[in-house]
């Protein structure tokens, strides 16, 4: 599917590059709205700040590690993500929301919902993958963490007290069993 990348993608790129001018621009455009919506819905300003930061970090990670591409304008996108995050949060805390649906978001386009859905799915996936990882044996977890951290294979092998050849073989096996575990969790659902 050919994607029509929105011009606001530049903010996402700015976020990935830790470009403070652009990130400040994101805050300028969106922070006020998120703050007033969350405080209107029984949250504090700190809650609003936490939700906002969390949303931006989610977006950042998806963009950096999984090449997220924005096909909708940034502002309603962030607003929608923050609203959903806050609605989840107040469900957890059993606070009653003032507006608990998205009907007040009439001005938000389909594409924005699709983008926000995508981010949410990615986050759900991330949890699922991590729980599969947690079920692996200690040795496998160790090997996978080390290699993901980008340490040199030789160093990892030495640290774990195994040979380089064994490590390479074991790593592939561990990753294969991880994927298998993910597949079986998916079919269970």
């Amino acid at each position: 599917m050919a994607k029509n990348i929105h011009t606001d993608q530049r903010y996402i790129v700015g976020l990935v590059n830790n470009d403070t001018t652009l990130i400040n621009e994101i805050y300028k455009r969106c922070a006020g709205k998120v703050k007033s919506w969350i405080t209107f819905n029984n949250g504090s300003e700190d809650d609003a700040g936490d939700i906002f930061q969390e949303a931006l970090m989610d977006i950042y990670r998806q963009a950096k590690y999984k090449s997220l591409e924005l096909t909708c304008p940034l502002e309603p996108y962030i607003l929608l993500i923050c609203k959903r995050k806050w609605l989840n949060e107040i469900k957890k805390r059993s606070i009653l929301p003032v507006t608990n649906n998205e009907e007040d978001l009439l001005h938000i386009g389909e594409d924005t919902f699709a983008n926000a859905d995508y981010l949410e799915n990615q986050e759900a996936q991330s949890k699922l993958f991590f729980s599969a990882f947690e079920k692996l044996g200690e040795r496998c977890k160790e090997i996978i963490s080390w290699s993901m951290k980008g340490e040199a294979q030789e160093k990892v092998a030495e640290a774990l007290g195994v040979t380089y050849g064994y490590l390479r073989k074991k790593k592939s096996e561990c990753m294969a069993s991880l994927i298998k575990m993910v597949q079986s969790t998916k079919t269970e659902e």
Partner: protein
Amino acid sequence: MMNEEKLLTVARYLEGDMELQEKEKFETLVGTDPELQGLLAEYKNVHQTLKMKIAPSEVDQQVNATLSSLNKQYFAGENPITTEVKHTPLVVSLKPYLKWMSVAAVLIISLLVWAPWSANLYEKYAISKEMSVVERGEGNKNNLEMAADLYNAGKFAAAAGILQKEYELKPDNSLVAYYYAVSLIETGSVEGARTILTKIYNGESVFKYDAAYYIALSYIKEKNNQEALAWLAKIPQGTSNYDKAQELTKKLQ
């Protein structure tokens, strides 16, 4: 190949656990096997997703730090945010700042050594900011009242002028002597002031320890901490300036 076998092949391929020949063979195979293609994509997806959770890079933390600092600005509790744009970046990664931080550290250390604010200790610990004259004459203000007004308005030079005459007339009036001396310190005639204050200190007036305190302050003004400390030590417990004297002593030591 069974799924499990294929999975392991994909893992070995992506983890670099294949010799060149096997690798080339695999790459040809992928082109014609949609299942392998699917597995490759899934593997990469799981790998990247986990990587951001298990092995966040340093940059991730830097971005988070940027956000934290902007959060303070935009979600700052009671302070409503202004829509002012700051054109200078607020936070960037720490690394380029390390250099400046060390420069700042050096500056702070040299400030501590130089301690320009010790001159301000005089200002901070000054007492007798108000000169009050109990006897208020009727009609025209007498000289002492005028001096008090000038003194209280901070016009120490003018006050000193009047007080000097009063002091010459009544050298035993400790009130006059005391405020005359303080006015002199304020106008920079520290030596003259100290002579007067020492005289008060050696006497038994109510200004005895105020005088000692001001002698100490006059030495602080000249950055002679040793003398200042000696005079502060003369102020006994129970007198009104004792607490301040103790505080100052701690600061000077």
